[in-house]
């Protein structure tokens, strides 16, 4: 491996914090709580039609014929679109994957074949949503069913039905991540724990608002207006523009309020393309609002991952030297955002631990299931779950206390910034202190006593810990780890900050908020930078590519807004401040250094009578420019764009080493569960979530994000799963059967925040909010603890009562988990 590169610490001028760090009410709530938000389905355009997609009932089939004639004869139907037309009118999307996965031909509608149940085959544009749906039922599609594959491990074998015959197998990407010397570690260790199989299940973050868009291809200008809730428009633009053969600046993206996205709304470019083609064909705007069943069956699922042949070398004193494993990532029928996930997990390769020797043999495997997309904690939480399961199973197998084993192996607080074996730099943290606090919050000793008291009552008590990371602000150079030819590296976000005509402070962000309170937190930071109150800062809601500035990486994803979005806004505000100071110093006849910004004025320090209001400064620059000397008038704009650029280098694609993320927020969760031996029902008795995300800009908003991420994790652990039957049919495509977590299902979270400011970011803040799936780890750990003595092993992330019941009922001799250890020294 290459020598890890260290970052130089970058510290811009700190803002005088007055508003930053306060729990201010959210600006957004003024409109959202009054029902005055504007979501994609609220949009309307003159002459618009409504779109319905006709979808495949088969997981894999050849399309023999698509007949839209009956649908087209229905009065009120404006146009139809089929795969054959799509092939003629557009190009296939660029694939991020190299060979062989890069050979995949992916269009906005199925062409020649369908590859998962729910894949769009045709589309109908009609005068009403209902009419489009009725007409869709008249579209005749003849299929020839083909054999299909539903399991990634099975699908990776030779001779299985191929999802894409042009790939030559179902393995779209394969790579080995090898750091340290794991073969040596396995030979040298006192114990080697072997875990044959672990499975991370499919689920989604189920945003309240499904996908929706209103697209208009203007025949006069050639511009395509795309109003939607897509969460990363520039990524969409880079795929849509070549597919449609238009310039990227013809694509005008717009979004105001988005009802949650969590990454799942990142890959909706296929639908946007289809709407654009329909709009052009019918010469009218095309609107589509996804049904919940469509969303669950066919938008995007979180990555399902199976780990095989895990081996963990452990020393007698509990030091875990590392691990090796094979990972099979089920990406569904198309790569789309993949195989970026094949590299992103390696941001957190050792988790919170000082593991030195690691090898993961990683495969991205096609199956005839819904394609995956980034899903809150994308790709990292799957891997972090593996790491936490390793720690708990090592403890269980060798008789260590899971708490002490963590303390023994955590990265210590004095080791930060800590460089991992694969070259990632963890910026700051104190995992030991967080663990202590989490255990304090659940009264760990009391919980152990409760566990003892429950013995023989038919209830089992378990205590579990999830210690995890939320790596934020990606280095897109990691794309080269999966495809060395991808011309991506670093990261960047843009913002505009200006004074308007009467001195109003106006900020436009490159990001696309989906509920993360960008208007509030940005206003707090900018208020400090410019000496005003947050109420005086107007942060433009939503995103408008014609108004806002952006980079290719703009968007809201990967826990980065607090660093990149705020960094960009703060940088623009600093430049605006310099303009204000320059004008004021000129007019007030003093050196720049003597100007202070207080309460919306620029005044001479110590002489507040000598002051200009921001309105006066705006007047001088915008309407009274002749009053300024030319050297000032020619250089001052009061309108600044700034691109925040984190200090990244290009990772080494060959060794797969490099600094892949800028910040590492951390979470330690602890929970106490009760398991009913008769029913397998799991009840959470106590739950603590201790978070660390650097300097919180608005602690209340941080806590809200902690609650959301924790709720999503609890839901996935106990209720939410996307299950396919043996015929490739999704079993739970409605909220009747996909059991989302509701308030009564949610435990009372005890939270705390222990800030360790990041040395690498403008405000000391770290991106957060995705969470690292800590509830999955802590609940699995608690179940394992509750099942202690039965020989049962928790091998799946999802543990509904039926699975727990089976774990309790399966006799020891019939267990197939196969966890075992080879010891050269006696276990403790």
């Amino acid at each position, binding site marked *: 491996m290459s020598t890890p590169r260290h970052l130089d610490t970058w510290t811009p001028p700190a803002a005088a914090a007055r508003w930053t760090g306060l729990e201010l009410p959210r600006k957004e709530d003024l409109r959202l709580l009054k029902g005055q938000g504007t979501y994609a389905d609220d949009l309307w355009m003159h002459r618009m039609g409504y779109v319905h997609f006709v979808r495949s*009932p088969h997981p894999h089939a050849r399309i023999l014929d698509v007949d839209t004639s009956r649908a087209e004869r229905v009065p009120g139907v404006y146009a139809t679109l089929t795969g054959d037309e799509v092939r003629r009118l557009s190009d296939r999307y660029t694939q991020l994957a190299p060979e062989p996965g890069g050979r995949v031909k992916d269009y906005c509608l199925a062409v020649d074949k369908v590859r998962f*149940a729910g894949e769009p085959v045709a589309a109908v544009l009609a005068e009403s949503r209902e009419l489009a749906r009725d007409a869709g039922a008249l579209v005749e599609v003849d299929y020839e069913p083909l054999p299909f594959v539903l399991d990634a491990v099975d699908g990776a074998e030779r001779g299985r039905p191929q999802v894409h015959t042009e790939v030559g197998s179902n393995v779209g990407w394969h790579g080995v991540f090898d750091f340290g010397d794991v073969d040596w570690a396995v030979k040298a260790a006192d114990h080697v724990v072997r875990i044959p199989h672990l499975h991370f299940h499919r689920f989604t973050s189920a945003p309240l608002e499904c996908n929706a868009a209103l697209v208009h291809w203007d025949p006069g200008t050639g511009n395509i207006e795309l109003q939607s809730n897509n969460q990363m428009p520039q990524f969409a633009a880079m795929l849509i523009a070549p597919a449609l053969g238009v310039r990227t600046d013809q694509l005008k993206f717009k979004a105001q309020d988005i009802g949650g996205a969590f990454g799942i709304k990142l890959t909706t470019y296929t639908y946007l393309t289809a709407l654009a083609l329909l709009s052009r064909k019918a010469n009218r705007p095309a609107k589509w609002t996804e049904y919940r*069943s*469509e969303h669950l*069956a066919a938008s995007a699922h979180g990555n399902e991952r199976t780990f095989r042949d895990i081996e963990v070398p452990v020393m007698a004193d509990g030091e875990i030297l590392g691990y090796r494993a094979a990972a099979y990532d089920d990406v569904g029928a198309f790569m789309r955002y993949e195989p970026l996930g094949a590299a992103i997990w390696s941001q957190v390769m050792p988790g919170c631990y000082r593991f030195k020797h690691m090898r993961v043999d990683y495969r991205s495997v096609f199956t005839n299931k819904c394609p995956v997309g980034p899903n809150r904690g994308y790709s990292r939480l799957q891997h972090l779950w593996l790491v936490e399961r390793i720690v708990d199973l090592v403890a269980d197998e060798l008789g260590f206390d899971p708490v002490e084993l963590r303390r023994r192996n955590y990265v210590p607080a004095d080791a930060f910034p800590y460089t991992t074996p694969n070259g990632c730099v963890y910026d700051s943290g104190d995992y030991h202190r967080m663990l202590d606090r989490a255990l304090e919050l659940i009264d760990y000793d009391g919980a152990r006593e409760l566990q003892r008291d429950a013995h023989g009552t038919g209830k089992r008590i378990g205590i579990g810990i999830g210690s995890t990371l939320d790596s934020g602000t990606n280095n897109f150079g990691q794309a080269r780890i999966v495809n060395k030819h991808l011309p991506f590296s670093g990261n960047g976000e843009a913002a505009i900050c200006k004074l308007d005509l009467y001195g109003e402070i106006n900020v436009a962000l490159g990001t696309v908020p989906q509920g993360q309170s960008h208007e509030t937190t940005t206003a707090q930071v900018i208020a400090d930078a410019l000496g005003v109150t947050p109420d005086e800062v107007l942060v433009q809601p939503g995103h408008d590519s014609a108004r806002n500035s952006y980079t290719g990486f703009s968007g809201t994803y990967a826990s980065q807004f607090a660093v990149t979005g705020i960094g960009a806004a703060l940088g623009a505000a600093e430049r605006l401040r310099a303009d204000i100071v320059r004008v004021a110093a000129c007019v007030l006849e003093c050196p720049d250094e003597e100007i202070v910004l207080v309460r919306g004025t620029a005044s001479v320090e110590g002489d507040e009578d000598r002051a200009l209001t921001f309105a006066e400064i705006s007047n001088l620059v915008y309407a009274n420019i002749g009053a300024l000397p030319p050297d000032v008038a020619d250089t001052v704009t009061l309108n600044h764009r700034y691109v925040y650029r984190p200090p990244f280098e290009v990772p080494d694609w060959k060794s797969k080493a490099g600094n892949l993320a800028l910040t590492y927020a951390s979470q330690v969760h602890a929970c106490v569960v009760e398991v009913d031996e008769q029913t397998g029902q799991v009840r959470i008795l106590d739950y603590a979530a201790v978070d660390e995300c650097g300097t919180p800009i608005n602690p209340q908003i941080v806590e809200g994000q902690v609650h959301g991420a924790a709720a999503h994790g609890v839901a996935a652990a106990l209720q939410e799963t996307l299950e396919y039957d043996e*015929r490739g*049919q999704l*079993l739970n*495509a409605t909220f009747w*059967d996909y059991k989302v977590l509701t308030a009564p299902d949610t435990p009372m979270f005890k939270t705390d925040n222990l800030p360790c400011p990041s040395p690498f970011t403008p405000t000391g803040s770290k991106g957060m909010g995705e969470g690292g799936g800590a509830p999955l780890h802590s609940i699995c750990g608690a179940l394992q603890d509750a099942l202690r003595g039965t020989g049962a092993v928790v091998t799946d992330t999802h543990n509904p009562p039926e699975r727990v019941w089976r774990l309790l009922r399966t006799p020891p001799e019939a267990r197939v988990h196969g966890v075992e250890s080879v010891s050269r020294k006696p276990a403790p």
Partner: protein
Amino acid sequence: MRLAGTERLAVPHGALWSVLGDPERLAEALPHVDDLVRLEDGGFEATIRPALALGEVPFRTVWRRDGGVAGETLSFAVEGRSEEYLLELHADLRLTGGDDGATTLAWNVDCGFTGTMRAVGQRVLPAIVRHQVQLVLAAATRQASAATEGGGP
């Protein structure tokens, strides 16, 4: 999805058999059925529109007799499609006449869906299928009673 039931219907065995064996007569009395066309091989095509929570979902179905013993058992193999949904259904009916003039009808349905309907089936479809069966039997009973009282076929 396999469902079964036994019903006691207050109509004579022969009258009930003649209705169940004649899809056109049956369809006249059935809710949610239209466009019935008899096929040359003895089967028939019909569009059925079961009312689901998603609204009425029209299925174009083809029904074919699949064995059976005259006067005793009726079997149907059914294929249906509706936009992104496919339906496969096999139905067996066994009729036994009683001394009191009533008929005992035992039914078995093996029903498979694809698409969202498959997901809905987890909780809702058994109730919907049972409801449809009840509608069919109620309609058949009405037809059979009318024929018996009116001396018709």
